[in-house]
């Protein structure tokens, strides 16, 4: 991922303030700074409109590497500082970038690194599965931990309180009423109006980062494919891209095209499911039935052509584990033609429906400013004017061979997030056709090379929810030392707390669905 022209200019601007060492790592722009300048860098970065994209830490011997990833105009910079185990603290970037808030709390819970001046340093990922002052991602913490028979519920988390006549609280979850992942929502409401919403996630934390350590590349790809089941292609691709960078492996062109087809098929399947579900949440069952029907047909083609309905484990380190014979290509193209006709019919019926209009327009409004402040990505960002798409801004194979038209809206309401999805389905269908046309005979998988101990890679792809960033460091003997996947949901979840404000409590489900964050991808 090469960074574009702004980096040199930016470095010269900040050189008076901060000492930056440019470290030479293949395929990554890596800047190292002193820990005491950690926040200062964020301030300068914000002045230059850099977007904070991800944050994580790693332990190497007696030191912690703390990383932040910044982006501007498709150029990604990995910022790093090294702090000592004896005094693991550094100034917080969350005061400058709200997007860094939960990420720093996660690092604080998992590594015991203190972020000085953090605006809200309550625990986040830790509930009661391990005790305070124990840090699961430190190397001396055993993967089995020291669990008690029954893990206590997290009773005493200090939620924000509100007082006053007529104000009441609604606790929801972790077990919800529908077929949905677990998480807790705490509402403060007056009548039906939502005054405040606080999310409490972390219920599906299953130690993905810890159990990744020591895996082989194949085994890690399988795990990455289960960070969030609906994004199995996206996460698997990002993780494989990071591993391939670290190992210096280039994937064959045919494999890249098939990866592109897989990713776009995943996008279409999820967007269709979401549009249906959003309509269902406002009791417009017609669209729900039509879209679940179309989605089912689409998944059946996945099973026929690729051997798995959700496309799990089709991407492997070095390439893909499936091929696309001519007959399958014809089948896919025929299906796309039929889907286009059907979509047009269903969307026209939806578009002219006044009850949908009544419920979806102006509801769940996310302003451009809020979206920008939280660095919202994917369809959530793009429905609120955030013109970002990795496929276009930092194209990776096979997107470097096509033009990606990025849908953009600035209405910021639920309707906007529906329309963005619809437009993205259309774009994805075109992309699949393009990729099929470009398929030439060739290898499906490059030979794997054992990477040097300590080598690292940063995989950045546009999953169906938005930008996914995956960082991998290798140990000796082809073993994984560190895996950190940043699901797009981690940036979008905080936006939900804002976009529900001044909506009524009964509209929460549809607001939530219009954002559709992954709990699993957030909690890891």
């Amino acid at each position, binding site marked *: 991922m090469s960074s574009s022209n702004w980096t040199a200019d930016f470095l010269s601007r900040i050189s008076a303030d901060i000492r930056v060492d440019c470290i030479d790592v293949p395929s990554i722009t890596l800047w190292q700074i002193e820990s005491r300048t950690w926040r200062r860098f964020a301030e300068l970065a914000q002045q230059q409109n850099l977007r904070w994209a991800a944050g994580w830490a790693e332990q190497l011997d007696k030191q912690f590497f703390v990383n932040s990833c910044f982006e501007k105009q498709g150029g990604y910079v990995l910022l790093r500082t090294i702090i000592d185990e004896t005094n693991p603290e550094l100034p917080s970037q969350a005061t400058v970038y709200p997007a860094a808030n939960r990420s720093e709390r996660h690092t604080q819970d998992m590594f015991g690194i203190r972020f000085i001046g953090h605006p809200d340093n309550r625990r986040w990922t830790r*509930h*009661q*599965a*391990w005790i305070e002052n124990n840090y*699961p991602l430190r190397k001396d913490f*055993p*993967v*089995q*931990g*020291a*669990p008690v028979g*029954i*893990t206590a*519920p*997290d009773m005493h988390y200090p939620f924000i309180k509100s007082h006053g006549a007529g104000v009441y609280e609604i606790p929801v979850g*972790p*077990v919800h*009423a*529908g*077929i*949905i*992942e*677990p998480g807790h929502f705490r509402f403060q409401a007056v009548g039906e109006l939502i005054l405040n919403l606080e999310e409490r996630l*972390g*219920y*599906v*934390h*299953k*130690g*993905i980062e*810890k*159990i990744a350590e020591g895996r082989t590349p194949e085994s890690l790809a399988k*795990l990455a494919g*289960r*960070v*969030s*089941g*609906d994004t*199995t292609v996206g996460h698997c691709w990002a993780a494989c891209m990071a591993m391939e960078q670290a190992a210096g492996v280039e994937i064959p062109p045919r494999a890249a095209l098939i990866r592109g087809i897989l990713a776009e098929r995943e996008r279409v399947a999820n967007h269709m*499911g979401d549009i249906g579900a959003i309509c269902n949440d406002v009791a417009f069952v*017609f669209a729900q039935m*039509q879209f*679940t*029907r179309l*989605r*089912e047909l689409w*998944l*059946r083609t996945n*099973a026929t052509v690729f051997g798995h*309905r*959700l496309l*799990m484990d089709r991407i492997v380190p070095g390439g893909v584990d499936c091929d696309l014979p001519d007959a399958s290509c014809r089948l896919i193209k025929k299906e796309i033609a039929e889907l286009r006709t059907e979509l047009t*019919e269903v969307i*026209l*019926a939806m578009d*002219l*429906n006044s009850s949908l209009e009544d419920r979806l327009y102006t509801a769940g409004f996310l302003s451009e400013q809020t979206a920008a402040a939280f660095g919202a990505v994917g369809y959530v960002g793009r429905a609120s004017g955030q013109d970002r798409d990795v496929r276009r801004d930092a194209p990776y194979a096979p997107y470097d061979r096509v033009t990606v038209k990025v849908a953009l809206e600035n209405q910021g309401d639920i309707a906007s997030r529906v329309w963005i999805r619809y437009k993205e389905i259309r774009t994805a269908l075109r992309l699949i056709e393009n990729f099929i046309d470009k398929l030439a005979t060739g290898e499906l998988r490059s030979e794997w090379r054992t990477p040097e101990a300590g080598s690292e890679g940063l995989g950045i792809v546009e999953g169906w929810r938005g930008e996914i960033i995956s960082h991998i460091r290798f140990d000796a003997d082809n073993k994984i030392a560190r895996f950190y996947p940043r699901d797009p949901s981690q940036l979008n979840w905080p936006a939900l707390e804002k976009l529900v404000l001044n909506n009524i409590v009964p509209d929460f489900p549809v607001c939530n669905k219009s954002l559709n964050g992954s*709990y*699993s991808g957030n*909690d890891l």
Partner: protein
Amino acid sequence: MLRIFKKILTTGIVTERISMRSHAEHGNEDELEALGIQIKRHIDKRFSGSIAIRQVDAGSCNGCELEIHALNNPFYDIERFGVHFVASPRHADVLLVTGPVSRHMQTALLRTYEATPNPKWVVAAGDCAACGGEFGVSYASCGAVSNVIPVDAVIPGCPPTPVALMKGLLGLMTVEK
């Protein structure tokens, strides 16, 4: 409105008999037909015609949820067998649990189990629920559902297909309890 009616009429009824024609790998067609009829009889006799399922995600990656959702799409339409999903464990005969049980969900799952009235059945759906899957037992995960609550039936698969889920659910009903 006319567009809606037109689309509904031209779509017709897509609901399928539980046949394996399009998914030959899942097994014998006649066997499943027979199972379906047998199960419906069991449900009719023991549950007055319907069973209520409460789905609990105890830590899954959400892959299983996608396929459980598919059970309600017009192709499978599981409600026609008298199987429906309910919003509260208090209304449920069956808990359909997915995922390895994350330690953070352990108490929630136990409480959901306690809240379900007797007699009750627990189905562990998916490889993670069956045996811990890709996540296993760790500081953060209790592994299989049976490590936390008693399990009556297991539906393997990562994730199990809607047909596999249906087969597993219907098969559960023939278990004497």
